[in-house]
């Protein structure tokens, strides 16, 4: 069964980002000096360059931290649910849920991989990205 979620915010800079995600690809802006940035924005915080490409990332990461929600803030999302912060090997940190089997207690620095999952929103179906433990089945 498809999960239900609040619709992602998709402003002027996020639109291409989410369009790629709909094609099950995670691409981040990378400036002409090679710096990745996240979230999407008008210029590179490192060098102020406004030239960039949307570069596909490896999808590999490691676990930075997590929390388990026991209070329901969104009617669409049943509790409890786990939100994790993972560091992409390219640098930026990404928030997502932890999906798939969780066989052992979570530990800082566990290897993660990005996966894609369909979600129903009030404005139709979206693909969102999620973290999974690197060696788990999803």
């Amino acid at each position, binding site marked *: 069964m498809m999960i239900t979620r*609040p619709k992602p*915010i998709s402003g002027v800079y996020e639109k291409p980002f989410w369009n790629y995600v709909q094609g099950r690809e995670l691409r981040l802006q990378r400036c002409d000096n090679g710096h990745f940035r996240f979230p999407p924005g008008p210029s590179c*915080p490192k060098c102020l360059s406004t030239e960039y490409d949307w570069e596909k990332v490896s999808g590999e990461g490691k676990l*930075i931290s997590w*929390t388990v929600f*026991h*209070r329901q803030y969104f009617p669409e999302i049943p509790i409890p649910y786990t939100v994790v912060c993972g560091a992409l090997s390219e640098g930026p940190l990404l928030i997502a849920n932890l999906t798939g089997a969780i066989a052992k207690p979570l530990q800082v620095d566990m290897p993660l991989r990005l996966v894609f999952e369909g979600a129903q929103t009030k404005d139709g179906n979206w693909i969102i990205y999620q973290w999974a433990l690197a060696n788990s089945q999803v």
Partner: protein
Amino acid sequence: MTDEKRLLGLRDDIAIVGIGDTDYAEDYVRARRGPAYQDSYGYAVQAFNRALTDCGLERDDIDGLIVGPTLSTERAGEILGVNPAWSSQADAINAVLQGALALHSGAAECVALIYGNDQRTAGTKYGGPTARGEQFLSYIYYSPWGMTSQGALYAMMIRRYIELHKLRAEELAQVALAQRAFAQLNVNAVMQADLTLSAYLDADYICDPLRIFDYCLINDGGVALIMTTAERARSLKTKPVLISGIGRSEINTDATSLWPRLLDFYHSGHAKAASEVYNMAGVGPTDVDVVGIYDSFSPHVVFALEGFDFFKPGEFAQFVAGGTIGPGGRVPVNTSGGHLSESYMQGWNHQVELVRQLRGQAAQRQVEGAETGQYISDVGGKVISIIYSTSP
């Protein structure tokens, strides 16, 4: 770069002379019971009148006005009948800094800082689909995954700390327990009921590992402070509480992706602000008699004390053992009960409490002989600290 030599000219030059707060415990009951009887401006006026009475200045002496984020300078000035030479809007700690800068520069001679918040009556939400902040704030940005509320961000911060330093729930609990113990010595605190370790551990999680007692209250109330020059303060009836040191540092790089929170615990900002505030005041953490920390969630206290060198990195558990931060402890923190147990006045009530402690007016919770107080705030990566003292 901060010019520490020039900043030294501000040391002990400006004082807080008037304090006023509303009846938080009663405000809480009335706001829950309804119907609404006053709004944010009403609470602010009540506190302002008390602050004037406290220091003996007249309304017409006020020529500078700083309002908190829920008020406008124009409407507040209209209601108070104040047409200031200089005005501004700021959160608690920035308001004190701006007041000091305005007074030191000569832009004003008596500045009133006023705050009122009807957040309980108004049903303000700090998480979920109606939380303020829009897209630039990460906890809204991350909504597809249900990531919302500042509390959840602090849950993630302290989770990483717990994993790195093996902090136990019983040890984190000491923050909530110590502040509740102080609140029980404060007749104006909203939460004065007994809180035991087992009740803390049995409480529901909001965002694991944070339980409800790690979260601040949402309640109505108001606070006012009146500041003037140390010179003018000498002619007033209250004991002036001087601003002896200030330190400030903002960490914005990669903030939306949570890097400064989760991988730095804001410690790079803490380090710069700590160096500035301690150098300017000519004191160190061991000289501080009483501490105020912005504590919308208990982990603030862990990170702030660590970042300002009250203990070695990772050693909160050892530091807090034996009641260090509670009544009678070596480093008393948030002695009114703070946001967790006194009132969620967004840092404003902490300034009132530090002034009371340094004047020796903190009743049963008075820290014996308190002469040096420190406030630390690191909300959203804006690390700011002030050292207050009574003896220049």
